[in-house]
């Protein structure tokens, strides 16, 4: 079917027997809630769509709904995600398996509606599972798989499905979809496990002081550690049904690569085509694309880049005052904990929706290859595509 990333996500939600969608419109996510509203208006879903007055209330309503045992979805971007920030910690702390589509967009100021990943990077410690999509197909596929992961009894944590604003949210592609029956087989309606059941009164959201708080957070961390296993289980099941196989991360030509780029989201598509070109010219370059960013797959990333001499990490967000962009900080940590010690450089690119060109990516590979030969990196953090 012809879908942009937002529509693909909404269509997957339609096939997911979602009980409650509570959301507030914000560019470039709006298409998602608009399309879903149409499904509701036409009686194609049983979903109760709670069209709230702010993103803060959207996430609050989602938490309330999720506590009843309902299946819950929301979507947002940028300022909306920032406004939800407080509630994101509570959603994960109360172990609500909510799925949220995020059409990644730059944060104000200055105000800008276009794509970068500053919004989600600012929420990376909120205790949410984070998945990044490369195209509209992945937006569809990961939405279905995300409910499986979120609702896994060993996990019970919320998930964000991230798609680059405009680049994915608004670009139309051909998307293969499951039939409604297949989707229902993969993801049956959520078995209601009501934590606010009047027959079994429980107090949710209690005050925990220094004598108990820490244990709650430790338990939450334990749940986070169980995400990779739940993800692998979900993607196996999905592969059997759809023929499309996902995982924690994706690698391309990394086996003998001297220089590997690590990135998230739609940029991976451009990088892959550059790798193909450079390989044709005999350059040993590769790509690691992370589907799963939180929990960070430390070992998998270290293994994927173990053979590389130089790793170039692409960050579409700034972490002001930090040694690197957020993704690069994580890659550096992963490498530090492993035997292999490739050189690492960081590229900051694409803020506020600025395009990254194949030439710029090729140039980053060339820089990497020079560094591999010299055994030293010239620039630790390089801003690409910005006027000085």
């Amino acid at each position: 079917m012809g879908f942009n990333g937002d529509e693909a996500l909404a269509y997957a939600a339609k096939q997911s027997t979602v009980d409650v969608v509570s959301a507030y419109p914000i560019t470039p996510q709006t298409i998602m809630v608009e399309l879903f509203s149409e499904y509701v208006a036409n009686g194609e879903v049983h979903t109760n769509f709670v069209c709230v007055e702010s993103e803060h209330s959207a996430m609050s309503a989602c938490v309330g709904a999720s506590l009843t045992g309902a299946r819950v979805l929301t979507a947002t971007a940028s300022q909306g995600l920032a406004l939800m920030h407080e509630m994101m910690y509570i959603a994960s702390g109360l172990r609500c398996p909510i799925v949220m589509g995020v059409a990644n967009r730059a944060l104000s100021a200055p105000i800008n509606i276009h794509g970068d990943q500053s919004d989600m990077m600012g929420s990376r410690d909120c205790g949410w599972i984070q998945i990044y999509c490369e195209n509209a197909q992945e937006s569809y596929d990961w939405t279905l798989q995300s409910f499986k992961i979120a609702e896994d009894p060993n996990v019970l944590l919320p998930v964000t499905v991230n798609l680059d604003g405009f680049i994915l949210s608004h670009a139309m592609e051909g998307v293969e979809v499951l039939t409604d029956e297949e989707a229902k087989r993969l993801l049956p309606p959520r078995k209601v496990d009501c934590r606010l059941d009047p027959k079994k009164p429980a107090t949710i959201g209690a005050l925990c002081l220094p004598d108990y708080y820490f244990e709650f957070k430790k338990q939450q961390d334990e749940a986070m550690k169980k995400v990779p296993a739940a993800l692998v289980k979900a993607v196996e099941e999905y592969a059997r049904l759809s023929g499309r196989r996902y995982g924690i991360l994706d690698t391309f030509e990394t086996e003998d690569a001297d220089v590997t780029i690590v990135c998230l989201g739609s940029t991976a598509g451009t990088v892959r085509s550059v790798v193909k070109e450079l390989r044709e010219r005999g350059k040993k370059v590769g790509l690691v694309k992370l589907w799963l960013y939180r929990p960070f797959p430390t070992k998998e990333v270290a293994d994927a880049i173990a053979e590389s001499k130089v790793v170039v990490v692409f960050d579409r967000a700034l972490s002001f005052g930090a040694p690197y962009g957020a993704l690069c900080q994580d890659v550096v940590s992963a490498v530090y904990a492993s035997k292999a010690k490739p050189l690492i450089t960081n590229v900051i690119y694409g803020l506020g929706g600025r395009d990254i060109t194949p030439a710029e990516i090729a140039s980053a590979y060339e820089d990497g290859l020079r560094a591999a030969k010299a055994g030293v990196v010239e620039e630790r953090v390089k801003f690409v595509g910005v006027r000085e």
Partner: protein
Amino acid sequence: MMVVLKELTTEELLAPGHRLCGGCGASVAARLALKMTRGPTIVVQATGCLEVATTIYPYTAWRVPYAHIAFENAAAVASGIEAAFKAMEQRGAWKDHVDVIVLAGDGGTFDIGIQALSGALERGHDFVYICYDNEAYMNTGIQRSGATPHGASTTTSPAGSKIPGKPEWKKDFAAICAAHGIDYVATASVAYWNDYMTKVRKAIEVDGPAVIHVLSPCPRGWRCDTSESIKMARLAVQTKFFPVYEIEHGKYKLSVKVPKPLPVEELMKSQGRFSHLFKPEHKGEIEKIQRSVDENWNRLLKLCGEVQS
């Protein structure tokens, strides 16, 4: 319908042993409200005194399902809960009707929670919102809120040598709620238990949102003796300082008539938060408050059809 004392349930859904202060009006408001439930009920709470003193893990005072999520969003949380039960009922996964009651303080209602409340009222969710109004942020140590009356001394509107307590006036919360066109809004005072409890049940039976604004004294913040809590709640009504009425389908009705009103000075001199108003440098303030109270009362009488407009 009026509540009959002998017919009231002896079941306490808010268990004793919680850690609220002696004389706390909020505990009375919560306890009485829970005696008026009609079936399966969920309590949603905003952060506040009532929440922190009743849910200290691993203990809880709540014998009903209870959810506290954050400070500013109790109405939004209630919206989600109500919406979820409806959806699950539609797909055959849930049967029993569940009433949702929100309990939130004046800070969580008049100030930080008013947006979420307004949204929930506009959307028409079926829930009861009870604001227990102790006229300041008592949980964090008596800071002024939009519900704090003019002239009251709080820790963020202290009575100084220049400024005699809070310069601003209390919001007309019931009118704000009624402006949403909802079916039922009422004010109440914990001193008039029968009136309050009757209103709670009436609110529960409304199909859609209903709001109750109940005056719940805080001896700590009002600077009065803990044994005088109910007396203060009554005095506020008898001085016309806190009128008790309901707005049903937009129609105002006075619930507690005050044939022989006491001067506001009676209330002011019995609460330490107003004691500075009796100092010579703040002369005239009490008269100003009295004028405002009279004007408000006369306006209300007209709305209630008690006098010719």
